[in-house]
């Protein structure tokens, strides 16, 4: 078994035989031509044929992947009418008296080189488009359309790179997964793979020798057999073709010639995924409400705008916890307002009117970026973190608030503040928010209605939740921290396992009191900690009257099934008794 790492563009597991795709890359020779006009006519005819082909491909792609996925073939047509491109070819044929093939190949290289040298990753990706249109012209000019060998059974397609026109011409029924050596996550192949919803890897560190080129790069092997040595035991295309492989789109790995154990494990995962998909089919678009009509909002927790695809796939009704830390971590300096604004706006727009709850910066001494220069602390869990950092560094906080409010013009954004322990903190935040709003008003920048809520994750906040409820629009209970602060147990410490009860009645009672206090003040209350996804407690949460559960995207559909199978009114008393203790009903 050999394992190679790639960048995943779509999750899922594919198991099948490898089919190594080889480009019909055209060999072009330079030759001198006698009749310039005839050669030019040849070129123009080829150009027109290429445009005709692209029109056909556009129509085919619209059917297969929709208009936005097909747009690339329209762009290719426009590229083939670009005066600079055409003039360059024409000039070469005229002044150097070379064959059209050579002029096309050289011009194509020059133009794709221009894109390859650009700063922007997206634009660099466009070099492939230029190559693609030149290849198309060359194929027409040379008249060689030997094409690809047909695939008899569904395969894992391994290629050095795939041009958009190549992907669309492939028989989709016969493809389980794409794995390419090059290509960015923004490449059209990646976009098409996502549209087709099949696992795909790009930038995969397969040995280049696979495609008949010698190169020492990309030669890295991991896996049970250890890290292979450069240049030894190199896979070649011939060896790989027809070999059994597993693509794990979730981990970004391809296992070539997997061992029994891996195969078994992957088959199991694939089965799980199939079940999840079936669940999705039956539950997608269905309401999350109990048999007797009690609703429960099922939102997703995300840590990155890349997770949005998962959010949509799992039919989340909103985003209940967007961890904004990723904007700050792994950076050299503070993210700018503009940078943050773009990300928040994108999320708000993608969720199209569904609620997006963004938690303001929640870092601490144990999880920080260097430029924050936070001092090391004896006990970071109880140190300068969360809202405490925001309030001691109002300039950093204001930047985030401005970005959030600006983005609120593009969707339904709600803001949530972490690590609250007192009413005073909430009022301080309010003051800052008001001054930020005033500032935006002065600059004539519009913003939307923004709900503002707090995390209930300290026992202090839970105990004064009646007072806090009067100050905010919603609560979201962060059970991870609440549990550790309440039980005085560090969950990372294995030695304490026998003392740790994740369903401790003290915790569950505290949650119940918090939700009751929220409802008394007329605000809603959700749970965004890990406990929210615990299906053992779903009935209890319904009994308590929790309004929202925010969980990792994959947990949404199982929860929806659970909720739809519950009769909340009938089970209420029993649930409260079972989990909160005998006399708990009146709590």
């Amino acid at each position, binding site marked *: 078994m050999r394992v190679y790492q790639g960048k995943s563009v779509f999750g899922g597991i594919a198991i099948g035989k490898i089919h190594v795709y080889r480009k019909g890359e055209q060999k072009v020779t330079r030759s001198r031509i006698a009749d310039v006009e005839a050669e030019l006519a040849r070129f123009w005819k080829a150009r027109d044929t290429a445009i005709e082909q692209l029109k056909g491909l556009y129509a085919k792609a619209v059917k297969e992947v929709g208009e*936005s996925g097909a*747009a*690339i073939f*329209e*762009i290719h047509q*426009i*590229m083939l009418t*670009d*005066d*600079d*491109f055409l003039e360059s070819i024409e000039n070469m044929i005229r002044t150097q008296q070379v064959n059209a093939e050579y002029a096309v190949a050289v011009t194509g290289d020059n*133009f794709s080189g*221009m*894109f390859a040298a*650009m*700063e*922007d990753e*997206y*634009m660099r990706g*466009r070099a492939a*488009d*230029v190559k693609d249109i030149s290849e198309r012209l060359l194929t027409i000019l040379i008249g060689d359309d030997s094409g690809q060998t047909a695939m008899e059974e569904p395969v894992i397609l391994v290629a050095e790179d795939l041009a958009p026109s190549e992907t669309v011409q492939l028989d989709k029924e016969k493809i389980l997964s794409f794995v390419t050596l090059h290509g960015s996550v923004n490449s059209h192949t990646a976009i098409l793979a996502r549209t087709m919803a099949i696992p795909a890897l790009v930038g995969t560190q397969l040995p280049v020798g696979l495609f008949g080129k010698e190169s020492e790069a990309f030669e890295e092997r991991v896996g049970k057999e250890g890290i292979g040595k450069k240049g030894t035991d190199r896979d070649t295309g011939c060896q790989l073709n027809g070999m059994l492989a597993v693509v794990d789109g979730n981990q970004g790995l391809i296992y070539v010639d997997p061992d029994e154990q891996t195969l078994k494990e992957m088959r199991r995962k694939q089965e799980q995924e199939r079940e999840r998909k079936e669940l999705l089919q039956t539950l997608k678009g269905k309401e999350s409400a109990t048999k007797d009509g009690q609703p429960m909002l099922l939102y997703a927790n995300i840590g990155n705008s890349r997770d949005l695809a998962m959010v949509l796939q799992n039919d989340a009704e909103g985003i209940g916890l967007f961890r904004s830390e990723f904007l700050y971590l792994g950076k050299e300096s503070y993210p700018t307002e*503009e940078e943050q604004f*773009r990300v928040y*706006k*994108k999320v708000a727009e993608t969720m199209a009117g569904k609620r997006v709850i963004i938690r303001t910066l929640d870092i601490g001494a144990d999880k920080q970026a260097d430029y924050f220069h936070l001092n090391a602390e004896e006990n970071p869990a109880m140190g300068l973190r969360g809202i405490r950092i925001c309030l001691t560094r109002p300039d950093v906080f204001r930047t985030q608030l401005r970005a959030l409010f600006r983005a609120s013009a593009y969707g339904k954004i709600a803001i949530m503040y972490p690590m609250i322990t007192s009413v005073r903190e909430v009022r301080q935040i309010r003051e800052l928010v008001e001054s930020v709003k005033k500032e935006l008003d002065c600059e004539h920048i519009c913003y939307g209605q923004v709900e503002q809520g707090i995390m209930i994750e300290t026992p202090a906040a839970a105990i004064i939740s009646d007072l806090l409820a009067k100050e905010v629009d919603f609560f979201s209970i962060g059970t991870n921290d609440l549990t550790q602060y309440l039980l005085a147990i560090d969950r990372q410490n294995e030695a304490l396992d026998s003392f740790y009860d994740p369903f401790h009645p003290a915790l569950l009672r505290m949650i119940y009191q918090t939700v009751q206090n929220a409802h008394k003040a007329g605000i809603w209350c959700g749970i965004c900690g890990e406990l929210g996804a615990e299906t053992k407690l779903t009935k209890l949460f319904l009994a308590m009257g929790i309004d929202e559960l925010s969980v990792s995207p994959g947990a949404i559909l199982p929860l929806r099934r659970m909720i739809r199978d519950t009769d909340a009114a009938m089970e209420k008393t029993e649930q409260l008794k079972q989990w909160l203790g005998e006399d708990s009903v009146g709590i």
Partner: protein
Amino acid sequence: MKEFRYVITDPEGVHARPAGELVKAAKQWEASVKITSAGKTADAKKIFGLMGLGIRQGDEIVVTVEGADEEQAAAALEEFLKQAL
């Protein structure tokens, strides 16, 4: 000659698809359409040059229209930019 300024709001900047649309929009007019961004100028009727400017969100571009139908062309292109980019 007509000239106007516009700040790109599309988060993706002038990437392939809007560049293609802009070229289509510019080609409808007889007037020449030039776009200047960060000191570089490109012909808006040529997709490669346009994409080569690498225009991103937040960048200000100057659109210069010159020719018989420049009045209408400039108005139409400004409208197009507001809609698409």
